[in-house]
């Protein structure tokens, strides 16, 4: 290394950095192993399995959206096809008694995702932006409708089921109990996350970012942006296939819902809500959205409405997602000015929560009268019982919603001032905000 390079280049990681880095992954692995001992119920094991699958799927989606700047409306195609091939493989393997254990089946899903991404992606990746988004939507519709037409392969409405326990046993595990499936999912999640992280740190990964930022200029540094997008698309399909296969193994069934628009929409929500600008964003989003969809559906019949409202709120108020919100505060934390903004958050929390409570009360009342107007008006939402026909409740809802909004709006300005003050101090200390 020359004189110039050693002072101009960013410092290479020292041993302490490397230990910290690898320590993080080891800690994650240990946490995954220990999790079932802390949360022992069967329900939480299922939840963790779903979260793991969702993490792989969301990260694979972010290879497109966050890393390469491609908005896909049909990512479930590769997830679903991975799932179907996994189910068929399990059936074929057990019928022919092939020496392939269950933990290798996700690899078949991955190769399926890769194959179809390679076939379908060449044309759609010619362009990014609207053209890519529209083609992805068209391909998704095509595959989703084929799933209902080609009944021998996709099984029609019922789908295809399989028995995962009939395969070659590995260390005496037949993968019947949920705990064994949890460990299978956890292992694949860790492998896939490490692989996708590593991908961001390669020449291809960096050129993906360059294509995202400025595909025109990429052409003038020797790279073909179409080739970069196509390779990113293939990788994305590969990892989506792993997620789909794990889902198929978890449920022992694959059906047309795997390929559908709802599945494609959910992964977009999860990735965006988590934050597309950071590697861990989709992980956060997958955890949040999985908990939300499991939790909300118990609390209210119109949980998808709230889901949509949360998505809109994130797009409008926090385009960096949940991760972006936290990262915004990192520079304040470094500058020691975080304490200046926290009180303003507490002040604004009360009226904002009041406003949200009023909104929920209004929504639930309206839902009651539009969905089942003839029934008993004493309803329960979010664990709270109230009489949807009572004028007092209507007045309360209106007062909370309007009053909350008017007060909250004042406090938001207060937050803005506190924020500006804290960031300018941080900037004076030379910490970029």
């Amino acid at each position, binding site marked *: 290394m020359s004189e110039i390079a050693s002072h101009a280049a960013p410092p290479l990681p020292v041993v302490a950095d490397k230990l910290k880095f690898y320590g993080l992954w080891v800690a994650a692995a240990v946490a995954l192993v220990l999790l079932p001992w802390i949360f022992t119920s069967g329900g939480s094991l299922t939840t963790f399995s779903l979260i793991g699958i969702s993490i792989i799927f969301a990260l694979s989606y972010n290879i497109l959206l966050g890393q390469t700047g491609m908005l896909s409306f049909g990512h479930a195609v590769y997830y679903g096809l991975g799932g179907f091939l996994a189910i068929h493989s399990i059936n074929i393997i057990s019928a022919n008694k092939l020496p392939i254990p269950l933990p290798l089946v996700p690899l078949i899903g991955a190769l399926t995702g890769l194959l179809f991404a390679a076939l379908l992606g060449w044309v759609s990746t010619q362009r990014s932006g609207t053209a890519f988004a529209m083609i992805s939507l068209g391909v998704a519709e095509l595959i989703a409708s084929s799933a209902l037409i080609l009944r021998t392969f996709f099984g029609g409405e019922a789908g295809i089921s399989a028995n995962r326990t009939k395969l070659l046993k590995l260390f005496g595990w037949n993968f019947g109990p949920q705990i064994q499936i949890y460990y299978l999912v956890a292992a694949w999640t860790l492998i896939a996350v490490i692989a996708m992280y590593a991908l961001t740190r390669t020449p291809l990964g960096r050129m993906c970012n360059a294509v995202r930022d400025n595909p025109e200029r990429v052409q003038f*540094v020797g790279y073909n942006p179409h080739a970069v997008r196509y390779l990113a698309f293939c990788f994305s399909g590969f990892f989506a296939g792993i997620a789909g296969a794990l889902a198929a193994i978890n449920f022992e069934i694959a059906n047309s819902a795997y390929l559908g628009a709802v599945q494609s929409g959910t992964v977009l929500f999860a990735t965006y809500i988590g934050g597309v600008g950071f590697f861990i964003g989709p992980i956060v989003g997958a955890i949040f959205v999985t908990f939300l969809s499991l939790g909300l559906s118990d609390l209210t019949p119109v949980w998808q409405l709230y889901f949509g409202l949360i998505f809109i709120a994130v797009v409008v108020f926090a385009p960096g997602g949940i991760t972006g919100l936290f990262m915004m505060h990192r520079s304040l934390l470094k500058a020691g000015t975080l304490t200046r903004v926290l009180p303003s958050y507490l002040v604004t929390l009360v009226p904002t929560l009041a406003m949200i409570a009023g909104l929920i009360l209004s929504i639930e009342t309206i839902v009651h009268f539009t969905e089942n107007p003839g029934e008993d008006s004493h309803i329960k939402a979010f664990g709270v019982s109230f009489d949807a026909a009572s004028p007092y409740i209507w007045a309360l809802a209106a007062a909370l919603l309007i009053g909350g909004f008017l007060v909250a709006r004042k406090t938001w300005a207060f937050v803005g001032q506190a924020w500006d003050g804290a960031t300018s101090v941080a900037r004076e200390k030379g910490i970029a905000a």
Partner: protein
Amino acid sequence: MSAAIELRGVEKRFGEISIIKNINLSVAQGERHALIGPNGAGKSTTFNLISGYMAPSSGSVLLRGQEISGLPPYQINRRGLSRSFQVTNVFANMSVWENLRCAVLWSTGQRYAFWKNIDNLPEVRERTARILADINLTARRAVPAGLLTYAEQRALEIGITVAGGADVILLDEPTAGMSHAETERAVTLIRRLTEGRTLLIVEHDMSVVFGLADRISVLVYGQIIASGRPEEIRGNVKVREAYLGEEAA
């Protein structure tokens, strides 16, 4: 020895309108050649035709004697021709260091590698650092390119253009919008970075043109009306009428 860049009867039409009419231009290897002309003369279009951003309607573009017209920009770049843009065209969300590194990758043979750790490529690191030091942005290496000052962005623009080691460099108004002092620094930088390479530059600032160029071509209404050494151009009657006017007086 064949010319670094040669345009033979190049024409570019948009529908009925001919923007470039029969350009013949030759830039010798190792020469610093300036392309001047009034606004709308077709200077940037000429750059677009040479760099592959557009294909000529007729005629041919040769790079070191080899036909390149009709090739996509990345293939022309891989043959050793690199251009900058009049409007700053960088990777705005990526740091200065990442910007320059992306510009170095192809020329060091990394291609689309997804099996190599980008921080573990000594040649890439060395060359990126060299360019970073050359354009004096070492202190700003971690800043996203979109947050740089205008002059810094222009320096980065030149840095990205030369980082791949191309021996034919096209610079499109590198000093546009700069103060006098910034222009002087930019010219010194350009002189240093294009040492031993072929340079074709579009520039409006005549002090830059006459200070830097070995030869000058004058483009008016899509045609080259004169080509020659600075003193020849200064004395050319047609050029004075069409363009230079009081600036040369």
